[in-house]
């Protein structure tokens, strides 16, 4: 089966139905292995047990950015090829990306409390992640405000692409802003992580990516089914008169 065959929603649905259980099962296995590895990884000599938060926190941050990248590619699909499946992919990715961004912020806060003595610092990374979260919420709000799905898709696609330009600028500018006001309160200076910690982290990153793929595929399937129900309801309403 060629990859382009998946562009047909019905073929995509049958592919999704077959793929989701396998992908989900694989995700559970890798996630369990990764968590096991993370829990048996050595503690940090300064931070003790709290360093374990890293194995959730860092992959969440990566995935929150990956989800926006997926949305940007889907946005190109929407604007250039007008493909309905690209609309569905973009819409399905937004809440998942927002959830990862929120997870990153929450785990970061919980990690920050014992290590920095505060839940929140206006540090460059925290701020840019918060802005990313706000952009996700804006896109979701746009999806929910426009009634016609095709029009909502095109509006959200433009916002997604502008956001994709803006995100690196925000990231860069807050680094700047931070150095103007205060020194970095925390930095992995010499960010070489020792292999005993790096390998569990990478396994967790793979597990989170698989989790994203599973959730995204399932959310796309649900969205396609939701649209079919919507179309049938509209047809029913128009024939009832």
């Amino acid at each position, binding site marked *: 089966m060629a990859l382009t065959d998946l562009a047909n929603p019905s073929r995509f649905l049958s592919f999704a139905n077959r793929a989701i259980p396998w992908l989900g099962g694989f995700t559970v296995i890798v996630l369990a292995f990764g968590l096991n590895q993370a829990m048996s990884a050595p503690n940090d000599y300064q931070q003790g047990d709290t360093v374990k938060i890293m194995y959730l926190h860092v992959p969440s941050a990566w995935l929150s950015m990956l989800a926006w990248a997926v949305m940007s590619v889907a946005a190109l699909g929407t604007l250039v090829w007008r493909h309905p499946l690209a609309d569905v992919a973009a819409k399905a990715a937004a809440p998942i990306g927002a959830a990862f961004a929120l997870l990153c912020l929450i785990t970061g806060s919980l990690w920050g409390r014992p290590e920095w003595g505060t839940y929140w610092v206006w540090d460059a990374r925290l701020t840019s992640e918060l802005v990313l979260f706000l952009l996700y919420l*804006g896109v979701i709000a746009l999806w929910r*405000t426009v009634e016609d799905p095709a029009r909502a898709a095109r509006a959200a696609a433009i916002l997604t*692409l502008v956001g994709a330009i803006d995100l690196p600028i925000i990231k860069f500018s807050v680094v700047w802003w931070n150095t*103007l006001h205060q020194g970095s309160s925390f930095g992995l200076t010499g960010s070489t992580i020792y292999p005993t910690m790096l390998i569990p982290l990478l396994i967790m990153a793979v597990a989170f990516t698989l989790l994203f793929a599973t959730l995204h595929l399932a959310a796309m399937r649900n969205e396609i089914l939701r649209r079919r129900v919507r179309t049938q309801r509209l047809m029913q309403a128009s024939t009832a008169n």
Partner: protein
Amino acid sequence: MSALAALLVRDIRIGVRVGGGALMGVLFFLVVVTLVPFAVGPDLALLKRIGPAILWLAALLASLLALDRLFAADHEDGSLDLLLMSRAPLELVVAAKGLAHWLTTGLPLIVAAPLIGLLLNLDPPAEAALVLTFLAGTPALTFIGLIGAAISVALRRGGLLLAVLVLPLTVPVLIFGVAAANAAISGPMPFGTPFTILCALTLASLVIGPFAAAAALRQEME
């Protein structure tokens, strides 16, 4: 070209007449700045320190005011359809409307900023620096706002959504605008570094804004 000039004149006229955003924006700017000492206390030293930040924040909020009507009003009375069908490139039409919006909402703020700065105990060099950063930065606010205005053009109650969509995108402009103003007042950073980046952000938004807004309008109006 004359069509664009006519559009510019028309939008400026609409902006300065009753119901337009020009004077309302300045009034809103004044009210927001007046509220701050009530919230943080009338400590002049503190106000002087956070003055540029307050003025930038107030300008950011004031620039949002007339934005939700920018395309929506034209959409309601049908003139947006005429603009879409005109022979002038839509990107330039959008840019002309953005320029008119900036002339009627951004420019009055810049004129009013030194007077309102007095309320915050800013001294003349600080005010000069602030006006310079406003001149360089407020066009970016308008042209980023164009994108949000175009996306939310056909929505009822688009105003609140517009703010939610646009404000996160203006974060870099705010950061470098305030950074440049503070650098001129208290250092230690040289003024030129954040200021040139502010100019770069404005130039980039002058390009990206009209293209993205025109694309959004084409998609919306199909």
